[in-house]
């Protein structure tokens, strides 16, 4: 395999970039296992000179309920995903296959809502939840996201390509629309649903703004909020513990990514090719 100069330059540039991409992770992990005295020495190289062990991690686990944060993240993301899918599938099917008066306008409205981020609707939603006394709950964390315009758009595109003849034949056979939808059309969209699931979970696992607005107790905090609370609680100088906390918070998504790389990338790309 001959090595061309262009290949060498290519790799050099890519590896340089890769080093920059990885640098924070490397530093995060190694600082978490460095002795505080070494951290204060501000060296150029990340690796510790002496073995300090995982004391920082123990500190973190003692002062912050990391497991609870993860659990909250899991509950909230699953809840959001389930409702998103349950709402989107019928809507997408109706928009794709069952035209009714106003379906065009509904679809337009959905497209427009797609560009309205949570940060815009946060204020009135917060006020509404506050009035109802539902703040600081799992429900409050999940509610604004129950409607996923992206899911509806994606599934509608998909369902549109499902052959009408099969649906007609099923209707003649006596199947109800409900059955047709769940038994025939939805299974054909499995890869799209899988990719969407990834997209949704990643987006909401890492979301900070809304949880910060509605959650006030540590017990209900999802991972990003947990990290924030933990960082605020630390007097700011204990970088060892902070890095250990950051490592723990980041680990789940990173590991999930390494295992389900293809689905992750597909999910993200799908958001690209709407």
């Amino acid at each position, binding site marked *: 395999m001959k090595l061309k100069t262009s290949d060498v330059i290519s790799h050099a*540039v890519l590896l340089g970039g*890769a080093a920059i991409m990885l640098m924070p992770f490397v530093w995060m992990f190694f600082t978490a296992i460095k002795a505080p005295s070494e951290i204060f020495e501000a060296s150029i190289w990340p690796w510790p000179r002496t073995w300090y062990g995982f004391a920082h991690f123990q500190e973190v686990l003692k002062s912050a309920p990391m497991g609870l944060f993860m659990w909250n993240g899991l509950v909230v993301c699953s809840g959001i995903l389930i409702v998103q899918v349950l709402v989107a599938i019928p809507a997408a099917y109706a928009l794709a296959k*069952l035209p009714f008066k106003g379906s065009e306008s509904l679809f337009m409205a959905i*497209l427009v809502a797609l560009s309205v981020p949570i940060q*815009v609707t946060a*204020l009135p939603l917060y006020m509404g939840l506050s009035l109802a006394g539902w703040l600081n709950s799992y429900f409050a964390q999940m509610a604004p996201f129950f409607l996923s315009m992206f899911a509806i758009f994606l599934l509608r595109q998909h369902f549109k390509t499902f052959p009408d003849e099969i649906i007609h034949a099923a209707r003649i056979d006596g199947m109800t629309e409900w059955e047709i939808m769940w038994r025939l059309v939805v299974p054909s969209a499995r890869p799209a649903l899988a990719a969407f699931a990834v997209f949704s979970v990643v987006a909401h*696992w890492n979301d900070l*703004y809304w949880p910060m607005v509605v959650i006030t107790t540590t017990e209900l905090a999802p991972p990003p909020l947990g990290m*924030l609370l933990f960082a605020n609680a630390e007097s700011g100088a204990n970088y060892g513990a*902070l890095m250990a906390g950051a490592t723990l918070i980041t680990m789940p998504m990173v590991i999930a990514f390494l295992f389900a790389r293809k689905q992750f990338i597909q999910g993200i790309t799908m958001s690209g090719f709407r």
Partner: protein
Amino acid sequence: MKSNRNDAEFRLAWVGMGLATPASFLLTVLYVLPLLCLLLLSLTDYELGATTLSWLGTENFQRAWSDPVFIRSLKNTLVYMAIVIPGGVLLSLLVALLVHQRARSRSFYEVIYFLPVTSTMIAMATVWQFLLHPKLGFINAALKAAGLGQTAFITDPTWVIPSLALIGLWQMIGFNMIIYLAGLSQIPQEIYEAAEVDGVHAGWERFIRITWPMLTPTTLFVVVTTCISAFKVFDTVLALTQGKSQSEVVLYAIYLEGFQYFKMGYAAALTLIFLALIFAASSIQLFKMDKKAHYA
């Protein structure tokens, strides 16, 4: 026969409406009503917990334009975008071009460049805080060793926005790279072959004559999404500066007004300005999507 068909269509239309009801309901409750609410609020001086409110008309909006904090946050956000958008588009394009050619190491690079995208920003922002620390961070240590002195990246007003922008770039490049990779794979190999036969060889000429023009729709998408996500910068500001050193950005200013100072009326007005700007950027993409949706 005719009446049967009408019945069937009629029935199906009702079923459709029924199936779309949950979505319509949520759309109303989660979007339509809140937006109306914002509109109303922005015209008042409502503060959370207040028992009275008075009508202000457009006073909130006028106040926004002379509010130094808000104006500064707009300026900061624009500076941030001015760094992140060209950087995010061009750097990710460069990386995508280089990675696209690699056959064996492609997945290796995909994983590494995408890793920052999956990480929790607030956690990584804390890591960056450490890295950029004047005394403890290795970047300043390296600068000192190179004789370039030390820079207070996060506390110095001249450096704070660029530093935040670099962190934003760091997280975004992998995402855009994947989009560009998908766009590149849609260019048929035959076109490159025809180009070779015509004398357009791989390298600068092929890039400028064929690859770049054929990537135009992809580039448009990347620019718009980078634009929108840059405009929504928040997590890094919250983690690193809390708005200090004159580093407020639009969302952070809105957050302060609404959820720290509880000036709901004013915050609503700011939010509507924010929304208008986001709409301007999204409408380009919206227009394209609408076209695709109708011809799909």
